[in-house]
C-alpha cells in the first residue's frame, strides 16, 4: 500500500468513525448538537476529498474545542485513539516533504502496535491478571458489563483464566505479526474480533471503529519497514 493510499484510507475510515460518534450527540443538548454538526460537516468534506488538507485542519482545531467542552476525552481510550489518528494525519498532510509525511503516519502505525503490546505488558505484570482474578472483577463489579446477566461470568474462573491469558498472549504477540503482510492481516483480524467482543460485552463500540480506522496505517508501515 502506498503512503498516499494508506493516508487517504485512514482519513476516510476516521471520518466515518467520527460521524458515527457525532450522530450519537445529536439527540441530547443543543450546544453539543451545534458542535457535532460542524464536525459532521467537516468529516463529509474529508470523505469527499474537498479542500484537502483544510477540513482535517478544521477537525483538529475543533477537537481542542471538544476536549475543552468535556474537560478531556468524552470516552477515554477510544477518543484518544481518534485524536491521535486525527492529529497524525493532519500533521502528515501539512508536511512539505515526503519524509515528514511518512514520519507522522509511521508514528500512528507504531502507536497502534504499542496500544496492544503495552496493554498486554501491564496486564502480565499484575498477578491478578495472571490468575484470572482481574477479569473476574471486571465482570463482577466494574462499570463495563452491558447487562446484569453478564456479571454471572465472574463465577466461571476457568473460562476467565483462559480468556485472560488469551488476551495477554494476543496483545504481547502482536508486534510479531509485523513480520509479514499475511501475519499482520491475521493479527488485525484477531484484533478486530477482540474489539468486537469488547463492543458486545462492555458496550465499547467506539473502540472498534477508532482502532479499525488506523489499520491502513500499520499495513503501510509493515510494507515500508519489511
Amino acid at each position, binding site marked *: 500500500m502506498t503512503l498516499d493510499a494508506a493516508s487517504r484510507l485512514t482519513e476516510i475510515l476516521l471520518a466515518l468513525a467520527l460521524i458515527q460518534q457525532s450522530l450519537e450527540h445529536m439527540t441530547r443538548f443543543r450546544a453539543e448538537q451545534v458542535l457535532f454538526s460542524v464536525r459532521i460537516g467537516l468529516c463529509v468534506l474529508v470523505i469527499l476529498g474537498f479542500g484537502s488538507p483544510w477540513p482535517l485542519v478544521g477537525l483538529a482545531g475543533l477537537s481542542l474545542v471538544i476536549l475543552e467542552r468535556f*474537560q478531556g476525552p468524552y470516552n477515554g481510550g477510544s477518543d484518544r485513539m481518534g485524536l491521535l489518528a486525527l492529529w497524525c494525519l493532519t500533521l502528515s498532510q501539512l508536511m512539505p516533504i515526503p519524509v515528514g509525511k511518512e514520519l507522522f503516519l509511521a508514528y500512528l502505525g507504531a502507536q497502534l502496535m504499542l496500544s496492544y503490546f503495552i496493554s498486554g505488558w501491564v496486564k502480565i505484570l499484575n498477578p491478578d491478571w495472571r490468575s484470572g482474578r482481574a477479569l473476574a472483577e471486571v465482570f463482577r463489579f466494574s462499570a463495563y458489563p452491558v447487562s446484569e446477566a453478564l456479571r454471572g461470568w465472574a463465577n466461571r474462573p476457568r473460562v476467565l483464566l483462559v480468556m485472560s491469558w488469551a488476551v495477554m498472549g494476543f496483545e504481547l504477540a502482536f508486534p510479531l505479526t509485523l513480520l509479514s503482510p499475511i501475519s499482520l492481516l491475521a493479527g488485525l483480524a484477531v484484533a478486530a474480533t477482540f474489539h468486537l467482543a469488547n463492543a458486545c460485552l462492555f458496550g465499547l463500540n467506539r473502540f472498534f471503529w477508532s482502532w479499525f480506522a488506523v489499520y491502513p496505517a500499520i499495513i503501510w508501515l509493515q510494507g515500508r519497514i519489511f
Partner: protein
Amino acid sequence: MPRPLTLLLPALIPSWNFFDVIAPSPRVQYGLTATAETEPKAWLEFRPRPERVSLLQMAQRLLWNPERNESLFLTSCAERLVQQPTRHSEDEIFKRIAADLAADPDTAEGPPWLWFRLVFISRDGDGLSQEVLFEALPRRRSDIAIR
C-alpha cells in the same frame, strides 16, 4: 500551556495501560426531595443496567450507542470528582440526571430538589464493599440547564 493542549497531550503520547488494575467502580445514585434540608429517604441508581441485552441489540449498538457512551462519560466524571473535584464534573452529572428525569413523564413533575452521590464498589476479601465517596449539595431542578 493552554488547557486544551494539556488535555490533548495524553492522546498524542498515550500510555495504553488499559485495565492494568481494576479500580473501585463508581455508581451514580440520585434522590429527589421537597426541600434542600432533608436528605432523600431512598437513593436510586442512575441508569441501572438491563437484566439482559440480546445479540441483536449488541449488534445495533455497534452503530448506535449514545446512552451507553453517555453513561461511560458519567463514570469518567465520577472518577474525576473523587480524584480532582471540579465544578464541571458535578455540573455534567446533575445536567444529565435532570434531563432524563424531565424526559420521563413519571418524574417530570416530581419533587424540586435533586441530589446525587457516588458509591464506589470494590473488592473486599472474597466479597464486595460499597463506600460513598462523594455527595453533591442538592440543586433545584429548575435551575439546571437541560437543553
